[in-house]
């Protein structure tokens, strides 16, 4: 203990700032949200192994019942267990959002960083192309493509949404990388003889990453909503595979008979989005280190 005090004194003497602000807490709510998202992911991954009823098994002895011990969240009008369907439904949302973001970031992030670093013609041409795509409403484009690209599959939905998200990711990453690329430490690395590749990987990437991560979380949330909207329009996975969106869609016609049908998938989606957005927001605030502290 005494040695650490010594070190502290030495450190202060030599002009090192103590840094209480860097250690600021993320807060309990943040960790609750992280816990909820983790739970969602685990449930989606382990749905097959969990002691759940089959999401497509139709139990005609218990149709449209409310929440009970036997069916935690009740059943729908075909006697299918809603709890199980909500859990399995999260799979579609999570698969689509992760897959689409993988495509979006896989293409958009490197292109954005490259454009911000190289500027010039490369940036001008690429950015114009991206802005042309951005000018086109993504949701209408996805609906149009998915209506004609049949038979529908999870893979196709992922590809379409993924491609639609590339310009968005590109734009965010490019502007973030642009502020980094003009910093002196990038020039400094250059006059140290660092290659472009090294500068991109070691100087740009780590400094753009915090913004990238918070945008990723917002992006996942957006794709979950988008998939929900598509499912609601009947353009997502085919029945009887459950997804939050198509469950809400199916519930509409039976809303007066059994309101639980709409409540639970909506609640699941709502909580999922709320948590993701909250996490993204807190992370951004946490990593948004002002110039003075850098």
């Amino acid at each position: 203990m005494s040695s650490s005090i010594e070190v502290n004194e030495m450190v202060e003497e030599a002009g090192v700032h103590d840094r209480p602000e860097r250690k600021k807490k993320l807060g309990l709510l943040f960790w609750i949200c992280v816990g909820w998202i983790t739970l969602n992911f685990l449930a989606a991954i382990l749905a097959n192994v969990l002691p759940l009823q089959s999401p497509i098994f139709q139990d005609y002895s218990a149709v449209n019942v409310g929440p009970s011990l036997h069916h935690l969240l009740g059943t729908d009008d075909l006697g299918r267990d809603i709890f199980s369907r909500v859990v399995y439904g999260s799979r579609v949302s999570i698969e689509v959002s992760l897959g689409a973001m993988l495509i979006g970031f896989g293409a958009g992030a490197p292109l954005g960083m490259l454009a911000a670093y190289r500027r010039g013609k490369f940036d001008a041409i690429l950015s114009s192309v991206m802005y042309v795509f951005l000018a086109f409403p993504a949701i209408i484009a996805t609906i149009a493509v998915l209506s004609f690209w049949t038979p529908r599959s999870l893979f196709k939905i992922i590809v379409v949404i993924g491609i639609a998200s590339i310009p968005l990711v590109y734009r965010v990453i490019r502007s973030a990388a642009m502020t980094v690329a003009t910093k002196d430490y990038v020039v400094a690395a250059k006059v140290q003889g660092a290659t472009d590749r090294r500068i991109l990987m070691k100087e740009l990437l780590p400094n753009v990453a915090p913004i990238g991560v918070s945008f990723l979380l917002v992006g996942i949330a957006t794709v979950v909503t988008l998939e929900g909207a598509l499912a609601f329009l009947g353009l997502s996975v085919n029945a009887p595979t459950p997804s939050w969106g198509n469950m809400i869609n199916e519930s509409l016609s039976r809303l007066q008979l059994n309101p639980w049908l709409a409540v639970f998938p909506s609640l699941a989606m709502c909580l999922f989005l709320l948590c993701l957005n909250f996490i993204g927001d807190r992370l951004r605030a946490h990593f948004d280190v002002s110039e003075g502290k850098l």
Partner: protein
Amino acid sequence: MSIEQKLLVVKDLATTFHTPSGPLPAVGGVSFDLNQNETLGIVGESGSGKTVLSRTVMGLQPRANVDVSGSVLLNGFEVVGASEKEKRSIWGLEVAMIFQDPMTSLNPVMRIGKQIDEILRVRLGMDRQAAKARAIELLDLVGISSPEQRYSVFPGELSGGMRQRVVIATALAGSPKLLMADEPTTGLDVTIQAQILNLLEELKERLQMSVVLVTHDLGVVATRTSRIIVMYAGRIVEMGSTRDVFANHRMPYTRALLEGSPKVSNPSHTRLLAIPGRPPNLLNLPKGCSFAPRCSFATDRCREERPELEAASAPGHAFACWNPLPVKDRVPA
């Protein structure tokens, strides 16, 4: 002295930016040279082209919209017209640069030791351990106490002066022969400024390198340089040994600069003499001497014809002025 012994020979260097409103000659007709183990000061107001000059000498330009002509011979390497890849071979190893603002010249998310040993590992091919040992040595060299512990701190944990020391350590890592210091103390407070400048001077002697000190602060160059270049509107208006420039300056602009800096010998509350007017718009330079509109000695000739550098009596001393101040051996400022 023959060309071979000069570390840096700059001839007729011109840097022109192409802007939407026309060509902007940020640097024009600049020629000078630098010996081994010499410190050269480049002074001038903001916007006089000194930063562009130092970056052009390094071969650092934006990728587009800029024209560079003339020649920069750095230890036998022609910088002007060299490709990025060719220049990479001298960057860090022959010439290094330290920047104005130590707050932004270190990567905030990389430990400072890593930023120093990066060049050691990548450029000099040292293994991890040798590089770490050398990086700690360098931190020690630039006067950072307990360098082993500091090796793994982030830049955000250090104060401005400490960071500038780290920046200097990274610049020295490749043992460059020439160190370009672009306003190295502007972002620091006065006591730290002196420390950093003394450190640079000491390192220059110890490592036998040459230093180009770019600054707007004459106090910085007065005691630490052997020669001074005074720039105005992208051109050299006076150059010579530090003593000549301070004591026997012939160009009114140099005098105005000197009178604009505070002196200890002045009685307190002495007003500093500001140079009237503003630096000229580089997009629309006056036809004659670019200082003429602000110069109290200006004649019609000054407004019509641009004076070229002409040699003064002292060797190496030159000035560009039609109506130079009379020669008189003043007490150095």
